[in-house]
C-alpha cells in the first residue's frame, strides 16, 4: 500500500513538471506507466476514466484522481491529486510573483504585447486539438459550430449551450 502511494506520488509529481502545454501532453506517458508498468488498470479502463474526467467539471488532468482511486483507494486519489498539481502550481506562483513585481516595468508591457497573439493562438490550438483528437462526425461539427455562434453572437448562458449540445446529440444522434 505504502509502496503504491509512493509510486503514485513519484509518477504524478514527475508528470506535473513535464506537462508542458497542459495536462493532455503527458497522457500517453501516464497511460504507459499506469497500465503497462504498474498494472493499476487496463487500457480500456484508462480510456473510460479519461472520458469521465473530460465530462466532469474541472481540468481534465483530474483523471489522476481516478487512477489513484483504482490503485490505492481514497488515499491514492488524494496522493495523486497533490502530486499532480502542487509542483506545477508552485512554479506558476513563482512566475506570477515576478510578473507582479514588474507591474509598471516597460519589459512587462512589452511582454504582454508579445504574449497576446500566442495566447489567442493557443486558445484556438486547444479547440483544434480537441476537434482532431475526438471522433467528430457531421452532427458533432454542427453542434460545435452552432455553440460557437451562440456564444460569440448572443448572450446565451454557457450552461444552456452545453445542455443544448447534449440534447441535440441525444435526439439527433441515433444511428
Amino acid at each position, binding site marked *: 500500500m505504502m509502496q503504491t502511494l509512493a509510486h503514485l506520488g513519484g509518477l504524478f509529481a514527475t508528470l506535473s513538471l513535464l506537462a508542458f502545454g497542459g495536462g493532455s501532453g503527458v497522457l500517453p506517458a501516464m497511460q504507459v506507466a499506469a497500465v503497462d508498468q504498474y498494472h493499476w488498470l487496463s487500457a480500456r479502463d484508462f480510456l473510460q476514466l479519461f472520458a469521465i474526467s473530460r465530462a466532469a467539471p474541472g481540468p481534465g488532468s483530474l483523471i489522476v484522481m481516478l487512477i489513484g482511486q483504482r490503485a490505492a483507494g481514497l488515499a491514492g486519489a488524494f496522493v495523486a491529486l497533490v502530486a499532480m498539481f502542487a509542483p506545477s502550481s508552485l512554479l506558476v506562483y513563482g512566475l506570477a510573483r515576478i510578473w507582479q513585481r514588474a507591474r509598471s516595468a516597460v519589459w512587462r508591457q512589452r511582454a504582454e504585447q508579445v504574449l497576446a497573439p500566442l495566447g489567442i493562438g493557443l486558445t*484556438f490550438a486547444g479547440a483544434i486539438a480537441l476537434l482532431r483528437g475526438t471522433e467528430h462526425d457531421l452532427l458533432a461539427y454542427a453542434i460545435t459550430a452552432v455553440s460557437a455562434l451562440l456564444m460569440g453572437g448572443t448572450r446565451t448562458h454557457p450552461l444552456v449551450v*452545453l445542455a443544448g449540445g447534449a440534447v441535440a446529440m441525444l435526439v439527433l444522434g441515433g444511428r
Partner: protein
Amino acid sequence: MGSQTDRPAPPPALGAVFLCFAAIGAQSFGGGLSAWIRREVVVKRRWIEDGAFLSGLALSQIAPGANAVNQAVFIGTALRGVAGALAALGGLMAVPVLAVLAAGTLYLRVVETGPPALAAQVAAALTGMGAAAIGLTLANGWRLSRGRVGLARPGPLLVAVATALLIGYWRLKLLAMLPLLAAASYLATRKRPR
C-alpha cells in the same frame, strides 16, 4: 507609480476569490475552463483586464501543468499574493474533485451493471456536451482576438494563426516552438515608425 492606467478596483476579499473560482470550477463542464475564467474574472467582476488575462493565459500554457489550474494560481497571486493563489486554487478544485470521484463511481456502476441503452445514452450526451464545449472555446478565442489580431494587424494575426496550426493541428511541442513563436511575435508587435 507612473503608470497612466488607473487600477480598476481594490483587491477583492479572499472569500470572494475562493467563491468566484469555486463557481468557475463548479460550472466548467466539458473543459474550456479559460473561457469561464475570463467571463467571471474579466467581464463580470473586472478584477483584471484582458491584457493581464492574456499574459496570464500564455504564461499558464507555457508553464507545465493544467492550464486552468495555472491560471487560477496566476490570477490569485495577482489579486492577493500567496493567500489569493491558495484561495483561487482551492476554490477551483473544490467541486471538481468531489464531482470527479462521484462521477467515476457512478459511471462505472452504469456501465457495469446498468442497462446498455442507458450507458449508450450517457455516452451520447457526453459527446454532445464535449462538442458544444469546443464551440465555447472557439467563441472565446474570437472575443480575445478583437482589437489585438485581425486584418488591420496582419503581423500578430499571422503569429496567432501559426501558433494555432503548429500547436493545435500539427501538434508540435509547445516548448520546442516557443522560442520561434515568441521571436515572431516580438517582431510582429513592434511599433512601426509612422
